[in-house]
């Protein structure tokens, strides 16, 4: 590498700083005995760990979950840093691969485990960290789908700390006014598409439609293809075959993309470019009857009067419609992994164990809007009454996702695949090319990635 020059400067810098730096670094270095994983800290010598996570929830973790954690582990100081989603994978890789990583814990999105594992910088939690695992930590209690997000080639690198699934939200008022039965987990795509024209309706007596059937991600975004993929998976289709070649470019595959594009006929004006925020707003303003969206928005959509115009009993959430095989959904799990180079892996792992314990999951779902991954949490009494129907739907979504392998490709080049899909699906929704051409392009480009 070309790094000679920076190294030289670093040496002189070191010399200049001299013993002062060494003195500052020493306590931390001493506390980091490899055998005990740096311990869990004492009142005199607390341990501090740093966590890199997405800035969508870093602040709320720092202010609400860390204090909860500290009730049990008062001698571990946790600093949570937020990173913007678009740069998060890059920054995680850059940090983990450095000689002296800043972060002890990295929170990673669903498709990223293979990329991060590839750096050889992650702790094998079931082996390397086994000695530091609380005997009461019940691995078997996790739903398989969320736990699998942080597994790669047989090694468990992480635990689910913030789970999310793609759901179908619906507005009961719209369904009632259209004279339609409200969606159930048995609603099929054929039924939904037949109902859709009736859900484009005039709710305000303006003499023209002011309510539409559906809104979701239609614009140019890496998450747009997940909606189509949910339709593909529900019909038994797959993105990639066993040899990691594109498997979606079939007649059935094209039909599912066509279904997705056809949704636009029943979507509000401007929906072609709608993404997360736009579709959420049109649903919260009562302008659409249904929305395919991440479950985590439930609180802000149905419960919190500051952010939504809808009433709690007006909003329902189900798994997405059933195709020829099973209902649809898509997995979105944030998992926590521990850096192998951390001087205090034991404390880091203690934080993640707590986060993914029953106790942590309860705190997370009642305080931060994150969802649990444990069967027992989902089956138990929810921390807030409004969570009860959501928990039931989530449990169903996990089972469906597991059965239909409804997640983004688990590969080192996962993001490259997702970017290709984002490109081509957006061209199809915009009408620039038809569904068949889009999938042919996407298949061609994905196979060129040599996965």
């Amino acid at each position: 590498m070309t790094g000679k020059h920076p190294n030289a400067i670093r040496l002189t810098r070191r010399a200049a700083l001299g013993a002062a730096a060494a003195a500052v670094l020493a306590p931390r270095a001493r506390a980091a005995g490899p055998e005990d994983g740096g311990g869990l800290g004492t009142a005199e010598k607390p341990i501090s760990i740093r966590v890199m996570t997405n800035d969508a929830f870093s602040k709320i973790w720092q202010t609400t979950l860390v204090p909860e954690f500290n009730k049990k582990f008062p001698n571990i100081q946790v600093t949570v840093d937020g990173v913007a989603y678009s740069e998060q994978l890059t920054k995680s890789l850059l940090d983990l691969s450095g000689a002296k990583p800043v972060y002890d814990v990295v929170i990673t999105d669903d498709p990223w485990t293979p990329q991060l594992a590839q750096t050889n910088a992650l702790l094998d939690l079931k082996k390397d960290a086994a000695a530091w695992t609380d005997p009461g930590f019940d691995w078997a209690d996790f739903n398989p789908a969320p736990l699998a997000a942080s597994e790669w080639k047989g090694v468990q690198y992480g635990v689910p700390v913030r789970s999310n699934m793609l759901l179908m939200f619906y507005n009961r008022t719209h369904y009632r006014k259209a004279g339609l039965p409200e969606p159930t987990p048995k609603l099929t795509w054929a039924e939904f598409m037949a109902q859709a024209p009736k859900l484009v309706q005039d709710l305000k007596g303006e003499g023209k439609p002011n309510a539409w059937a559906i809104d979701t991600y239609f614009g140019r975004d890496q998450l747009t293809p997940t909606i189509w993929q949910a339709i593909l998976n529900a019909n038994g289709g797959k993105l990639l075959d066993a040899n990691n070649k594109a498997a979606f470019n079939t007649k059935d595959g094209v039909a599912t993309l066509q279904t997705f594009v056809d949704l636009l006929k029943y979507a509000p004006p401007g929906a072609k470019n709608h993404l997360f925020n736009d579709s959420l707003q049109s649903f919260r303003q009562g302008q659409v009857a249904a929305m395919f969206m991440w479950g985590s928005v439930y609180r802000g959509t149905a419960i919190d009067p500051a952010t939504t115009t809808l009433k709690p009993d007006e909003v329902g959430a189900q798994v997405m419609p059933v195709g020829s095989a099973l209902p649809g959904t898509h997995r979105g799990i944030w998992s926590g992994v521990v850096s192998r180079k951390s001087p205090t892996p034991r404390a880091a792992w203690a934080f993640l164990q707590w986060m993914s314990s029953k106790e942590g999951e309860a705190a997370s779902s009642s305080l931060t809007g994150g969802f649990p991954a444990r069967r027992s949490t989902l089956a138990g009494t929810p921390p807030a009454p409004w969570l009860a129907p959501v928990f039931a739907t989530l449990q169903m979504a996990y089972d469906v996702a597991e059965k239909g392998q409804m997640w983004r490709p688990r590969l080192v080049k996962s993001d490259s695949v997702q970017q290709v899909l984002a490109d081509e699906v957006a061209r199809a929704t915009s009408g620039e090319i038809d569904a068949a051409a889009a999938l042919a392009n996407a298949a061609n480009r994905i196979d060129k990635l040599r996965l």
Partner: protein
Amino acid sequence: MTIGMKRPTRARLADTAGRWGFLTPAFLILAAVLAYPILYTIEISFSEIDIATFMPGEFVGWDNYETVLTDERFWYALRVTLIYLVFALPLQLLLGFVIAWLVNAEWRGRGVVRALFIIPMVVAPVVAGGIWKMMLDPLWGLTTYLLGLVGLPALDWFGDPVLAMGAIVLIDTWRWTPFVVLIATAGLLSLPRDVFEAAEIDGANWWTTLWRITIPLLVPVIAATFVVRWLGAVKMFDIALAATAGGPGRATNVINLFIYQEAFRGMKFAESAAMCVVVLVITTLLTGLFLRGSRVLEARFQ
């Protein structure tokens, strides 16, 4: 500087050093900060990148360049950028100088007007893109509402490829015309007053004054503003990202947004590096052309 008279060589050396002294700080800072990143980019562009370490892996020769140059999407993004530039740049330059002339009219409030004018530049791009999206939206947008009041249908600003490009040019013009206004105002303020007084005494009308005196005097400033705005506009991607994310389809996917997405979303850092080098070459050629053009103009007018 009288000591130097005795030792002419030393004086000349000191003089040369004094001359070069003006360029040294800028050159040193840029060399120190940019040398490694540029070399790294060039090296990566000829290698496979090891994503686990972000260091160049195996040398692959021109492979990345071949991939990029045969990628129809790359050329498409360049074309989109060209369309955007052709509309946005002249519009911003023209508007900027006209507005600068308007707000330079002498009255008490003009300082405030000038200060307020810079606001569009200061609003964070994410917010700026979002506000415009909010105002133009065919569902809840203010413009849609106003159009509806006079019985006009909503415009699907971000769903129609042509309108979406129009929206990008509009937002970018809103954002960066104030820059031109700012520089043009300073340019107008630095003009020597006696020339205009002389022209007034000669009885020249404002049109003649404009064409014979103001514009010729302003040519270096106009040219510099153009070059700076051009170099800024080539790199535009934040507004497109915030307002359209490159869509609909890929109608507003300008080159820097394309490279950004390929690098940070697609994790194709090696190909992106090759694209960066190609873009650098193209920008260099065009900038060279503009510089030559501005020299010719300066020479003609002075």
